[in-house]
């Protein structure tokens, strides 16, 4: 991993942790930083699940395309091809479900949402 990428990851982690800790302090500047973090998480989740759905759609479409072509060329092998396709589809779909879980974790678990909303209401 390159040095620049490492620095980027560390600074993002530092920003996240410092923003979460600072909500308790109630500093207005830090609150706005926290809102930026929340904004970033919302954008990341939206793009993340979008990219995951795109990849899953492409993968499933490709798998079904191949399976149907194979079945049309060799109908006797249709049963085996469909079995393999279902297994492949389950594997592909699980990736999108993982992305969904990670998005929910990002939204509900990483920022202290209760504290964030309390600060906004105040």
């Amino acid at each position: 991993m390159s040095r620049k990428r490492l620095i980027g990851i560390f600074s993002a982690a530092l920003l996240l942790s410092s923003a979460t800790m600072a909500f308790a302090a109630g500093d207005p500047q830090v609150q706005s930083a926290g809102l930026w973090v929340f904004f970033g998480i919302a954008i990341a989740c939206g793009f993340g699940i979008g990219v995951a759905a795109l990849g899953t759609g492409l993968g499933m479409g490709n798998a079904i395309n191949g399976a149907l072509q194979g079945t049309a060329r060799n109908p006797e092998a249709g049963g085996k091809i469909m079995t393999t396709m279902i297994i492949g589809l389950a594997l592909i779909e699980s990736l999108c479900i993982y992305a969904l879980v990670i998005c929910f974790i990002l939204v509900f678990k990483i920022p202290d949402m209760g504290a964030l909303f309390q600060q906004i209401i105040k």
Partner: protein
Amino acid sequence: MNDWEKLSKRLRIVNWGLLLILVAASSLSMFPAFTAGLAAGGLLSIANFSALGRSVVSAFGIYGADKAGKVSIIFKFYMRLALVGILIFILVGTSLVNPIGLAIGLSIVVINIIVLGIVRACNFSSREAI
């Protein structure tokens, strides 16, 4: 019994076995929220896999889908996805379960399929060697 029925039966048995083993091990060694996440994720993934199999078989089976059936198959497909999303949202959003346990539970079918693939590949290569 065709290929899919045989494989599906085997996968179902191994899925439930794996889920039971993991839940038992987790209940002995981990905290309750983790075990709940594991059980919920496992149940969700097994139900999702069997529903996916059923919808694909009905859509691409020997007789295909008739015109009235196509709409219901597509509707069921999207309803299944929506249901999975809503259930995961409720589980994670209300902090009922531990998300790491949920992710491991959701991986049960994937782990099972990968293990099955490895076993089949090993069997195939040993047969080739003979």
